[in-house]
């Protein structure tokens, strides 16, 4: 923690960054912080409660954040993957941002509840994450951590769903998606949903009905997953942000496993590696094609 704070102060003092985007203690646990001076930098924290992906704050459309000046952003490996995606997709220029990588052993499934990281409390997505620190960083802080061995409940749930009949899966998802109010929180917090105008907001034609009825909701979540296929970095923000508790991570996880199985691709922190959708190999599997 001291290391992070000292680095943040140094970056600010030397003018390498005008704002350090990290985490601080807030009224309900930790939350994103925008440190522009040494005092604020001294309040930065990093621990297993820091689930928030800070990469979305690099989006140039967040004018009020951009106005603070050149950012340094603290990134967990998953967040770094998001930054890599933004660089790859020309939303962020690598040279325009200072990246401070934190060594991460995973975050808590319920960051607000706090507590220590254990096989029981670790977030599901961290159970299948194999990255403890990122190469996409100008500085790396924290002590090396060992991964926690814990079976992924999410993968087990995906497997359960896979084992169901289509009718059962349909019923399951209709039950879940019925809660969706299309508040768009999942989209707004997603580091890779940065479009000036989302496809869902297009009206001529309206590919995705904006009404939060089952039909609009299903089409929205299908197309959201398609657009994120091979790009989703599994930062978990969509599911965390959903005020209706819809298990969106199951969908993104499923798509990620399809992409990994079929195209051998896992989103990583190298911006030079292209997204698997938008590239191809002549020998891609096509057993499903007649």
């Amino acid at each position, binding site marked *: 923690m001291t290391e992070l704070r000292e680095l943040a102060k140094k970056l600010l003092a030397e003018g390498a960054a005008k704002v350090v985007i990290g985490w601080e203690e807030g009224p309900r646990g930790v939350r994103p912080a925008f440190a522009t001076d040494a005092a604020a930098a001294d309040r930065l924290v990093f621990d297993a409660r820091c689930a928030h992906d800070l990469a979305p704050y690099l989006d140039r459309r967040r004018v009020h954040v951009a106005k603070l000046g050149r950012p340094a952003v603290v990134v967990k490996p998953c967040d770094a993957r998001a930054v890599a995606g933004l660089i790859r997709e020309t939303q962020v220029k690598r040279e325009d941002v200072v990246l401070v990588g934190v060594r991460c052993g995973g975050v808590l499934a319920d960051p607000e509840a706090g507590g220590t990281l254990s096989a029981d409390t670790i977030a599901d997505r961290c159970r299948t994450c194999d990255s403890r620190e990122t190469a996409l960083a100008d500085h790396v802080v924290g002590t090396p951590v060992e991964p926690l061995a814990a079976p992924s409940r999410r993968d087990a749930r995906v497997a359960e*769903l*896979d084992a169901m*009949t*289509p*009718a*059962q*899966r*349909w*019923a*399951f*998802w*209709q039950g879940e998606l019925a809660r969706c109010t299309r508040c768009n929180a999942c989209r707004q917090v997603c580091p890779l949903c940065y479009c000036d105008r989302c*496809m869902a907001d297009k009206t001529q034609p309206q*590919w*995705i*009905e904006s*009404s939060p*009825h*089952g*039909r*609009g*909701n*299903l*089409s929205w*979540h*299908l*197309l959201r*997953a*398609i657009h994120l*296929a*091979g790009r989703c970095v599994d930062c978990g923000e969509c599911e965390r942000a959903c005020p209706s508790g819809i298990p969106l991570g199951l*969908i993104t996880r*499923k*798509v990620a496993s*399809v*992409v990994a199985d*079929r*195209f051998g691709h896992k989103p990583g922190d190298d911006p030079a590696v292209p997204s*698997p*959708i*938008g*590239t*191809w*190999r*002549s020998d*891609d*599997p*096509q057993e*499903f*094609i*007649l």
Partner: protein
Amino acid sequence: MEGTATATGFEPRITAFVCNWCTYTGADLAGTSRLQMAANTRIVRLPCTGRIDPAFVIKAFERGADGVIVSGCHPADCHYTAGNYHARRRFAVLRELLSFMGVDERRVTFSWVSASEGAKWRDVVNGAVERVRECGPFESYRALAGGV
């Protein structure tokens, strides 16, 4: 919910999205060869499978299609070099995703039909109709919106 009952008299409605250069022409050949096939499909002609957006498939189901066919040029035959390769990746993902969300994968048929494969097109159409017939009508997606 996915229908399981095989309603008698059920005639599936199948939307086919095909590329102009291979499958559309192959379907033309099926016509000039007078190959008889089920009358359940309606073709939407597009320049290339690369143009076929997963949204088309979703929209067709949303509007009440019982099945969808996506068809284009064989690998390495794309008129535009690589549109079918892009499509292949897209639809590999879409297919599994639809299935994961509860849409029976028998409702979606993907095929490569070249301009010379009129008979294959017939088989693709007939096969798709048969599979969709097994699944039964797919009104449930459309009905999710509820009415007045």
